[in-house]
């Protein structure tokens, strides 16, 4: 016990440890793994260990780099199409989430103060229940003999079951459904802090509510819009579970390709190369997210 106390005492005397522990943790589990991915993407299938990449000439180590995987990715039309289609679905998801989520967050921020915590918890609650099970639930709703088709058929609204499953429709619904809370939460955080006096001032000066909304509310919530959009867009690009369960043969997604390269083809260098290209694609959105979060924080203080 005494030892333990002394250990903790030393911990709080040394700020170095408070910084050092998380630093070591993240370097081991984030920085080094990403470097290894980079390295393996430049190796061949047979040689995935570090030693095989270094050849010794005249007693000096030289690094053999192999760009064959990248050449293959950029020359093969299927990969290019898949990257394009992933970005397309991620963008569509983001736009739909924004179209649904912005009005929602706006109304929520204007709702009576005492019910806002409940409204917020109702948005978070599905987020706490298993993501996988909720995606599975959409499958039971959308398949051709699924709940929605059965209800519509029995009400004689439709004669033939609608084809809503394993296509871009089911994929988009699943993605919007899963990522909508990520759009709503930063927007709500932003809009609930909006100073209403700006709008009153605009009204006093004769601006119509509609015009005031576009000229004042939207520009002031820019940071929330950007943060929400990036929080949806970035994970959506690499999504695997939703396209696997709800997508079809035509809905190409890069997360699925990476998975198949790794698990079905056992081609680790290729999977690593796909991952590196994916990281390159989301690097710019990540930088935008960082600056948006920084300005959200300034707005708070």
């Amino acid at each position: 016990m005494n030892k333990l106390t002394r250990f903790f005492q030393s911990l709080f005397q040394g700020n170095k440890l408070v910084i050092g522990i998380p630093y070591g943790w993240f370097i081991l589990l984030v920085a080094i793994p990403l470097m290894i991915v980079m390295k393996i993407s430049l190796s061949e299938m047979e040689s995935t260990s570090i030693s095989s990449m270094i050849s010794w000439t005249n007693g000096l180590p030289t690094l053999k780099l192999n760009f064959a995987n990248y050449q293959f990715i950029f020359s093969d039309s299927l990969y290019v199409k898949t990257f394009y289609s992933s970005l397309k679905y991620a963008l569509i998801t983001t736009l739909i989430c924004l179209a649904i989520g912005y009005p929602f967050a706006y109304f929520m921020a204007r709702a009576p103060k005492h019910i806002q915590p409940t409204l917020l918890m109702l948005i978070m609650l599905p987020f706490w229940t298993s993501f996988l099970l909720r995606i599975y639930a959409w499958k039971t709703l959308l398949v051709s003999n699924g709940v929605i088709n059965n209800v519509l058929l029995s009400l004689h609204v439709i004669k033939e079951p609608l084809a809503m499953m394993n296509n871009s429709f089911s994929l988009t619904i699943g993605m919007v459904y899963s990522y909508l809370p990520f759009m709503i939460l930063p927007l709500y955080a932003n809009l609930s802090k909006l100073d209403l006096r700006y709008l009153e001032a605009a009204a006093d000066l004769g601006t119509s509510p509609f015009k005031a909304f576009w000229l004042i509310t939207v520009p002031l919530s820019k940071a929330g819009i950007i943060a929400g959009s990036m929080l949806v867009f970035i994970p959506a690009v690499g999504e695997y579970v939703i396209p696997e369960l709800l997508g079809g043969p035509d809905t190409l997604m890069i997360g699925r390709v990476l998975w198949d390269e790794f698990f079905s083809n056992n081609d680790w260098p290729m999977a690593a190369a796909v991952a590196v290209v994916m990281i390159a694609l989301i690097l710019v959105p990540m930088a935008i997210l960082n600056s948006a979060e920084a300005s959200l924080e300034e707005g708070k203080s």
Partner: protein
Amino acid sequence: MSQASNKVFANGWMFAVYLFLYLPIVTLVVFSFNDSKLVTVWSHASTRWYSALMQDGDLISAVSLSLKIAFLSALMSVFFGTFTAFALHRYSRFRGRTILHSMATTPLVMPDVIVGLSLLLMLVSLQQWLGYPERGLFTILLGHALLGTAYASVVVTSRLKEMDGRLDEAAMDLGAKPLQVFQLVTLPLLAPALVSAFLLTFTLSFDDVVLSSFLSGPGFNTMPMVIFSRARLGLNPTINAVATVTITIVSIAVIASSFYTSHVERKRKRETALAYSDVNK
């Protein structure tokens, strides 16, 4: 638009969004009590899939593995997440803070497949070098703890920002040692955040399928892995039953913890008010 029709539109919009969010969950629960083998066609109410669940050995051992991993990874996440939050918040001006901040946000936004692949390749390299670790419970735990640390640090950081730093200073002025300050002042104030961080990271771990699939070894199937492989093959009523059990437990836990948090908050406010009223006497 008049004021009243505005309000109707706003309420209608919000209602539609909640319907969209909850309809699939309600359907899952309702059809778990369906007697038919077909998940989507209602015959009559029964608890047959719950009895099937009780005899499902694969699923039961997967649930116990998942619970173990979720509990341990939540503990680790809260531990490392608290350190991360302190490093980022309390020592806001140290060299490399930006690097730590971006490393801590990477697992939050990076697609799961990349986090899983990179961790696995690192662990494989480590194994080639040291002969350790074997893929299994430990490697899954490490992956979940990484993801959890990132989330826990966000939760704890937001709490640290709300906390009054002067309380720590006051305690130190009154002669408390740093450890005493932590135990008697910082920790009690931080407790609600630690509880919600624990619950959040527990849920994240209990829900994860992608990281587990990358990091698992033969014989180590978590509950989401079993559910995922069944869901890939088609619809399966036992999944509905599992879902209902999970949803019930999670909802109770979330509602209970939010009551606990607001209770602690109110108690703290009352005590603060009392303390100030003493001063004013």
